[in-house]
């Protein structure tokens, strides 16, 4: 779950990380009022769950309340990277000496968290990492010992800080790590972390929380679906609200499988036979007839689809359930699109009988089923 900048900053402040004075607004009037209240130049930033908004024109500066209102007017409803800007964050403008990058994320390979820092923040950090990897300071946290103060001091040292600046930067590192751990962050980063005259402040904030850990963060859990707004297509949002694992693609063959790996392999096999998948839908394990019906109906109702391929393999998922679900879905969706089912597992014979009665092809080989689905899609 990706929090917006202003939401992330609320957590930052809770963990003692300094942030500039700011307020979230949804109308130009709000920008005017807040800029007047602050009485200093401000920056107005589009609140989006993706990076790179600066380059896309999502950040504007204003010297006066009038300019702030005009900037807000221009930014609201703007389309950036597929998102519509609905909220803005108005913040006091900083006199930045240097832009730093600081992040904490999961290091899969070392099975730990890693602290990343660079004195070349403010631009695409991945670009810096790719071009000049030596400019990135990495500290892999030993999960048993955790991040100690001397580790944080070392990170600050390696960025070139000494004295009080080292201590202040180190406390930033410690606080961000503590926040990452306690908030179950997949990623939390500050880019730029602004070095100003008298210290440091978080000019931006990102906090992506592990969806699997939301049971520990109930206050976020209820907003999970909402947080995907804009990031997912309309169809994907609808699928998510039905509890389906669905990704929209641009082809014309509907795909339903069980397990992410097998479903991906189904997509690949269809592609290899010259077809193109319209979606990825993973049923997961042990699907009930109701769930299978909902999934198949959802895909069949997609007007782009010329054929549906269902690929289920497993001892846990029952083939008679698959058959019942698919037959019911075709009846409910009331469409005459060709359906091909590949299944193997428990009650296979019964499943085949049900499908045959309904005039639906069933096969035991994924590769043959994919070939047939491509052929049927071409013919229809």
């Amino acid at each position, binding site marked *: 779950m990706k929090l917006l900048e202003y939401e992330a900053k609320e957590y930052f402040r809770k963990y003692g990380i300094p942030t500039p004075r700011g307020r979230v607004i949804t109308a130009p009037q709000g920008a005017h009022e807040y800029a007047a209240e602050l009485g200093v130049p401000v920056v107005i930033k589009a609140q989006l769950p993706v990076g790179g908004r600066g380059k896309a024109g999502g950040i504007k500066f204003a010297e006066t309340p009038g300019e702030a209102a005009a900037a807000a007017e221009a930014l609201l409803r703007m389309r950036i990277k597929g998102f519509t800007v609905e909220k803005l964050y108005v913040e006091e403008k900083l006199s930045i000496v240097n832009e730093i990058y600081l992040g904490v994320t999961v290091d899969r390979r070392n099975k730990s*968290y890693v602290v990343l820092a660079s004195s070349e923040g403010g631009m695409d950090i991945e670009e810096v990492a*790719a071009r000049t990897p030596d400019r990135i300071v990495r500290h892999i946290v030993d999960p048993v010992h955790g991040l100690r103060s001397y580790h944080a001091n070392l990170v600050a040292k390696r960025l070139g800080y000494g004295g009080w600046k080292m201590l202040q930067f180190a406390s930033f590192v410690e606080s961000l790590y503590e926040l990452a751990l306690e908030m179950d962050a997949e990623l939390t980063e500050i880019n730029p972390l602004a070095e100003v005259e008298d210290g440091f402040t978080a000019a931006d904030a990102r906090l992506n929380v592990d969806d699997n850990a939301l049971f520990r963060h109930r206050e976020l859990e209820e907003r999970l679906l909402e947080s995907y707004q804009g990031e997912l297509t309309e169809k994907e949002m609808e699928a998510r609200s039905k509890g389906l694992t669905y990704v929209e693609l641009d082809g014309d063959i509907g795909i339903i499988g069980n397990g992410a790996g097998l479903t991906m392999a189904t997509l690949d096999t269809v592609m290899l036979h010259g077809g193109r998948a319209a979606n990825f839908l993973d049923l997961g394990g042990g699907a009930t007839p109701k769930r299978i019906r909902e999934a198949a109906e959802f895909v069949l109702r997609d007007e782009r689809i010329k054929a549906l391929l269902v690929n289920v393999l497993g001892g846990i998922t029952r083939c008679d359930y698959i058959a019942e679900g698919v037959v019911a879905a075709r009846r409910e969706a009331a469409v005459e699109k060709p359906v091909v089912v590949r299944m193997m597992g428990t009650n296979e014979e019964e499943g085949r009988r049900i499908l045959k009665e309904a005039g639906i092809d069933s096969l035991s080989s994924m590769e043959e089923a994919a070939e047939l689905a491509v052929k049927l899609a071409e013919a229809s």
Partner: protein
Amino acid sequence: MTRFIDKDTRVLVQGMTGSQGAFHTHLMREYGTKVVAGTVPGRGGQTIEGLSVYDTVVEAKENHGVDASIIFVPAPQALDAALESVEAGLDPVVVITEGMPVRDSIELMAMARLSGTTIVGPNTPGLIKAGESKMGIMPAQVFRKGEVGIISRSGTLFYEVAVHITRAGLGQSTCVGLGGDPVVGLDYVDVLRWFEEDPETRAVALIGEIGGDAEERAAAFIGDGGFTKPVAAYIAGRAALPGKRMGHAGAIIQGSSGTAESKMNALRDAGVTVGELPSQVAEALKRLL
């Protein structure tokens, strides 16, 4: 050293009274697995399939001489359950549970590293020694005793390849589902090292998918001569769109490494036969053996 199972491994089922736990206890025993007891905190004294259920792992171990554990408890309790088995000295510990927070996985792997315990998973179908024992949820009917070891990050795709290997008349030795999460106990290299020493494994099927760099690292290990038996591979996700999540948290394309093409090329460069279809993995293995 990585530790797997055979027909004599005495298995504990954590979360035995739940629907998944009870169902798979039955199927594992049917396959021949020596399931000897179960645990569920608060359910001590009950029985499932005639097996005693205990409140704690230590009690089960004292009464039954348990070697290894398989975990079916819900995600919020999975870390506690796994640590309990690690501390009790059980090895391997197989975590079937889906949806475990990454922070919990990191803590588990760190503690397991200290004690040298093998963790399989989380979010894994488990492991099986064909014809002897399974600690997992894989359908038994697709496996037959043979000489091909399988390593896979995915569950059902692993069964798909096993089907073809069995149909080709080859069969399997030990098969390991690594698990689909970003942080898991084993990677390909750990299992390849074990297969290199395993006299019952003569060739390996390596099944991968987009995301991360575990397959690339396996390729480097093979290319450097770390694994000397024949390998055939299949990588899923060629038709995936960059940046789109395909269900697994691990299956996100990051940069150029992690794409299906990069993995396939790395493996080919290391001398691995890479199939475009799952059936081609079995065909290649048949030629190689």
